[in-house]
């Protein structure tokens, strides 16, 4: 019995893998714009996974997550464009074509810097709980944005609100992802190349999160989320672990930022406003906080919905004589969806299972009211039970 299920699982897994591989080529037929939507959605999945570490596992409500995204994006933007060379004659003399640092230096650098920023933000906020933490992180996000917006004077570093243009595309082994390539008799336009890059990153991120969730660290985070004092009493070093959560989450944000910058080729402070942070929090909560499949669904839904509505809203706009333009309708639908989904499913679209089982393990032939159930639950899964019930408590 276990064997068949394992085989079915493998089959489903392979089917999903094949589907993910051919997806862009199918969607491409409808136009590259649709592949682009998928790309952006994958980027948001990456961000949501990162934030899920902070909010979902460690229970620290972070409303300034986009700051780390910005750190990563500007890291790549500055080190892989002509921006710095335009400003500083010294750099221009050394690199006449502008700085074009290769991606395998910039991306780790962006990840490290964002992670460091995360720890830096985490350090003074360790004592804060719940909403105090939320407002401080929110403030941090705004501070970063205001600086990005104003650092064009007296020395032009970020080019202010105008943003940085002409950012390099990533090229792997001399194959530029920015140009249309031809492999296996298929066209690989930019959006498809980036699709695979993002897909690899998302899978990698999911693996990291999956392993983290089940590790000592992950369980310690959940213990902190449920009851910090009790966690401390159990010998958990809450300070270091909270810092680690901030750092890990921020690293994911930084990597997504570098990806965003190279994908768009243009960044400006506008992309890193508070709304983005709130949107990412909404993705995590809407999908199912602390539950990987839920978070992914939430991110895909909230990222793709507005873009898809852009195409759907056009006909509606004509029906109302253009009084409601497409962007307004889109916003209306998103707002209604957020309220409606939360009212219908307060724990998210796909929350973690309520009764102490991470996955529907087939073995136990127990009825739900069998008194034997509590004893059978392993220590690890029982942590999760508490976790789930505990999300109803008043502490974030």
């Amino acid at each position, binding site marked *: 019995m276990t064997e068949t299920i394992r085989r079915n699982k493998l089959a489903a897994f392979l089917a999903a893998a094949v589907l993910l591989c051919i997806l862009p080529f199918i969607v491409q037929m409808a136009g590259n714009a649709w592949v682009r939507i998928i790309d952006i959605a994958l980027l948001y999945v990456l961000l949501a996974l990162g934030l899920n570490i902070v909010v979902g596992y460690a229970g620290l409500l972070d409303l300034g997550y986009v700051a780390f995204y910005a750190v990563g994006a500007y890291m790549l933007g500055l080190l892989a464009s002509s921006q710095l060379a335009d400003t500083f004659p010294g750099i221009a003399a050394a690199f006449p074509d502008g700085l074009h640092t290769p991606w395998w230096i910039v991306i780790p650098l962006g990840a490290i810097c964002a992670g460091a920023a995360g720890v830096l933000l985490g350090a003074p*906020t360790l*004592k804060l709980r719940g909403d105090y933490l939320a407002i401080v992180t929110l403030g941090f996000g705004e*501070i970063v944005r*205001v600086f990005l917006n104003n650092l064009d004077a*007296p020395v032009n570093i970020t080019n202010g609100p105008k943003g940085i243009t002409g950012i390099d595309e990533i090229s792997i082994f001399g194959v530029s992802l920015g140009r249309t390539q031809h492999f296996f008799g298929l066209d690989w336009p930019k959006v498809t190349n980036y699709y695979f890059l993002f897909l690899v990153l998302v899978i990698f991120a999911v693996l990291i999160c999956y392993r983290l969730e089940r590790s000592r660290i992950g369980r310690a985070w959940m213990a902190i989320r449920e009851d910090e004092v009790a966690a401390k009493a159990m010998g958990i070093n809450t300070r270091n672990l909270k810092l680690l959560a901030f750092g890990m989450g921020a690293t994911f944000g930084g990597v997504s930022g570098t990806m965003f910058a190279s994908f768009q080729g243009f960044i400006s402070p506008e992309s890193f406003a508070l709304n983005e942070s709130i949107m990412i929090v909404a993705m995590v*909560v809407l999908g199912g906080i602390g539950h990987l499949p839920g978070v992914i669904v939430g991110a895909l839904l909230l990222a793709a919905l507005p873009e898809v509505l852009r195409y759907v809203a056009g006909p509606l706009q004509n029906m109302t004589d253009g009084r409601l333009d497409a962007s307004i309708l889109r916003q209306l639908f998103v707002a209604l969806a957020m309220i409606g989904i939360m009212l219908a499913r307060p724990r998210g679209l796909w929350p973690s299972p309520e009764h102490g089982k991470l996955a529907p393990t087939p073995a136990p032939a127990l009825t739900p009211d069998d008194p034997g159930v509590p004893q059978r639950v392993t220590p690890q899964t029982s942590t999760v039970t508490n976790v789930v019930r505990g999300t*109803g408590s008043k502490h974030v």
Partner: protein
Amino acid sequence: MDTFIQQIINGLVLGSVYALVALGYTMVYGIINLINFAHGDVLMVGALTSWTVVTALAGFGMPGWLMLLISLIAAIVVCSVVNYLIEKIAYRPLRNAPRLAPLITAIGMSLLLQTLAMIIWKPNYKSFPILLPSEPFHIGGAVINTVQILILVATAVTLTGLTYLVNRTKLGRAMRATAENPRVAALMGVRPDTVISATFVIGAALAALAGVMYAANYGSVQHTMGFLPGLKAFTAAVFGGIGNLAGAMVGGVLLGLIESLGAGYIGALTGGVLGSNYQDIFAFIVLIVVLTLRPQGLLGERVADRA
């Protein structure tokens, strides 16, 4: 010195608006532990409603103060209804849901209000007419106009009234009891649902007042105008110690003062490297410093980590 007095006046005016909005945040938070993200947008609804009323009344030759008063009443009524409905539709069903669920509906409501405002009032900026005499009064080199004086007076009166309401009346006692423990309050004959609704209505009335005064002072209204005052007011509420009425007032006024003094002097202090375009970050930097040193806010009580 003149600049100093001027910045103090500006700061007090700005701080009064923050304090009024912050009270709405803090009262709601005190009772149901929810950050009402849509509160800033209630302010926007108030300002836009009063703009509509004022524009509609423009032809009747009424004195400016009367128009302002009528529009204020209209704004208070509309905002109260809106906030009452928000609570009823988006927060009440989620009262026992996981903590972050109502936060998301609050964000959704904020987005919804902005969108509806965009549909009803169109997205462009609208100028708010000057209704009160605009000749400034001089106080030792600094100037203050009628609207600003009105803001200070109205805020002081409202805050006194609110303090009386909360500390001396039956409703106030019921509110405090519900904040302390809704279940026990219910056993004592308090209806928590009614009290919570009343709290939202009072908060909305304060936000409407703040919105009308903000519009009258800055002279323009738009559907996104609620965002920044809302954010700052929330900051002020946390700064003073969220859930604490006096804290929200003190936090709001202090935040206003810090912002305007900071914006006034940063250029001189840093030799022109940083300008007043950094105004918005003062609030946050001070907030981070204060909360690091005093995690419960200025007037907040130190609560046990877990009850």
